[in-house]
């Protein structure tokens, strides 16, 4: 056995290029398979697991998904505004424990600016917004801002920095507001979409030059020093914390079934679940591609070994002439395929880590959600095991060819 293992090792070394390329294809397939499953599950968990800190979102009549994407994930455009009155009504509804208004419509270098109340920093359950050292919360009556950690990292904004917002949700240098804001604090990273947000007082959003309020049905442009009547105010969304699921059920009936002025997205996780369910086919396609890659890598093992078997018939004949049993030759080739598959499966882990790291960077840049590279998924165990098994099995065809090598024909010429 020891000598046969030595023979296998030397043989793999003799065909080093083919061995490395084949093992690399197995590593790639293994890493891809693990990556697809881990990223899919982590992304689903991040978008649906209820880490948003709120139970429901109230917004303009329309798509619940658009409402959630806009207000929770700070993606997509706002479905429209609702009057301030709806905010105060729902805030005072029994069963609602917290209601935080959001007003959106501006950005700073592409990062969304959300006008809100100071409650936004303590209302979300389990969110635990914390300011980085040296920062303080904004004064709702001043042109002050608190910025998310990712915004600070990308734009260089820090406590004491001054900036001008830009109109619209997409960055356009020509749309610069003349209003200047001062940053009072930077939030510590939360690994959520909130890291990509610039928070300012909601009053500041109303008073931004060029903004027109239509809460009362007529246009209202607030002048400096002039108080804004509540009926003229509008909000893009109201983030809600509810006392119980029954409260959510009741609000759902009231807003979505009986009313027609607004939309309630509740529960938030379920809305996102539906999105993932709708795109379930995409998961299956990705998984299929990964499985196909795995099969191709196994086929690579088969082809690589099968090609070398033809060159090595003489070697097998020599081994047989020395007294090696047929099954020893079969075993040697299976050991080679298993070794390639094994090395590839182990090397799949760095591929997986690199893939997850790259995906994490992209997802964080796009959504603020951060993936955990050390996330445990059963695929991390069964994928390498399956690759090892399938890769080993792929060696069976060349092994049988080696097994059937006619000894006499492949030794010395007849004399």
């Amino acid at each position, binding site marked *: 056995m020891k000598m046969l293992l030595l023979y296998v090792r030397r*043989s793999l070394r003799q065909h080093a290029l083919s061995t490395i390329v084949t093992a690399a294809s197995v590593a790639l397939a293994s890493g891809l398979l693990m990556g697809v499953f881990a990223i899919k599950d982590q992304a689903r968990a991040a978008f649906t697991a209820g880490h948003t800190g709120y139970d429901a979102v109230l917004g303009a009549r329309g798509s619940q998904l658009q409402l959630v994407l806009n207000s929770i994930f700070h993606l997509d455009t706002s479905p429209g505004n609702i009057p301030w009155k709806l905010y105060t009504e729902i805030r005072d509804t029994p069963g609602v424990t917290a209601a935080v208004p959001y007003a959106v419509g501006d950005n700073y270098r592409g990062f969304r600016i959300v006008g809100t109340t100071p409650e936004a920093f303590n209302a979300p359950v389990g969110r635990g917004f914390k300011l980085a050292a040296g920062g303080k919360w904004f004064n709702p009556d001043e042109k002050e801002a608190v910025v998310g950690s990712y915004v600070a990292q990308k734009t260089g904004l820090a406590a004491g920095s001054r900036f001008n917002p830009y109109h619209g949700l997409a960055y356009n240098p020509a749309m610069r507001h003349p209003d200047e804001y001062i940053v009072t604090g930077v939030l510590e990273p939360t690994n959520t979409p909130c890291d990509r947000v610039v928070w300012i007082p909601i009053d500041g959003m109303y008073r931004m030059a060029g903004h027109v309020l239509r809460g009362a049905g007529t246009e209202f442009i607030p002048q400096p020093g002039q108080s804004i009547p509540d009926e003229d105010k509008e909000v893009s969304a109201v983030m809600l914390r509810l006392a119980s699921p029954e409260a959510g059920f009741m609000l759902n009936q009231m807003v979505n079934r009986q009313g027609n002025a607004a939309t309630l997205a509740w529960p938030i996780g379920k809305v996102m679940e539906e999105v993932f369910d709708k795109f379930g086919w995409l998961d299956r396609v990705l998984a299929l591609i990964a499985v196909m890659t795995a099969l191709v890598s196994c086929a690579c093992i088969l082809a690589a070994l099968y090609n070398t078997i033809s060159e090595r018939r003489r070697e097998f004949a020599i081994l047989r*002439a020395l*007294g090696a049993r047929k099954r020893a030759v079969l075993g040697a080739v299976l050991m080679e395929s298993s070794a390639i598959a094994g090395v590839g499966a182990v090397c799949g882990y760095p591929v997986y880590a690199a893939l997850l790291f790259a995906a994490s960077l992209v997802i964080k840049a796009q959504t603020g959600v951060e993936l955990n590279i050390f996330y445990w998924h059963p695929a991390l165990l069964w994928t390498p095991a399956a690759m090892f098994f399938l890769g080993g099995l792929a060696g069976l065809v060349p092994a049988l060819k080696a097994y059937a090598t006619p000894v006499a024909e492949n030794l010395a010429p007849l004399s």
Partner: protein
Amino acid sequence: MTALELSKLKKYYKAPDGHRHCVINIAGFSLDRGEHVALEGASGSGKTTLLNLIAGIVSPDSGSIRVGDTDMAALGETRRDHVRASSIGYIHQTFNLLQGLSALENVLMAMSFGKGADEKVAASLLERVGLGGRMHHRPAQLSSGQQQRVAVVRALANRPGLVLADEVTSSLDSKLSIETVTLIRELCRENGAALLLASHDHTALSRFERTLRLEDINSPAETAL
């Protein structure tokens, strides 16, 4: 004591025209333990086929091949492999060394299929044939003569009772041919092994006291179908 005994041995091959042709038809032949015999025959006369039959690499169509106490013709492939590994040393015309292994590892590989790999024994045998300083070299790093010596050591490492040598001098010059045959005979004598050396090289054949012509013991034409 008989090391090899052939009896009513026949081997047919199927020709491209579909007919079966008898290439080996030996009524009887024997080799005593420790006896050295050279088998002379022209190329294509069936020398390799006969040695392959004796080694159990190919099976006969009829007859018996007794190696020591074992009838190779009556054994299945696996048992023949076992007997070949432990009781027969086979030296091939083209050395047939495994190119990925060193000289020492080639010898150890053969031992591993027989009585077990023993590095000390393998190394001392290689030193005995003057390859002490080259035992870790690959075949490609050795001269033809050195490769042939490795092949000889490999065949004798398991101390077989019967050694078969097939045209072992065909790729060597006459000086090396004499050295190689002398070495094989010396090592066989030391082990008490019987030797059957097939060749058409007169230099090699001249080193033997007993030389047989294959035609004298083999009459294939008589049994062609």
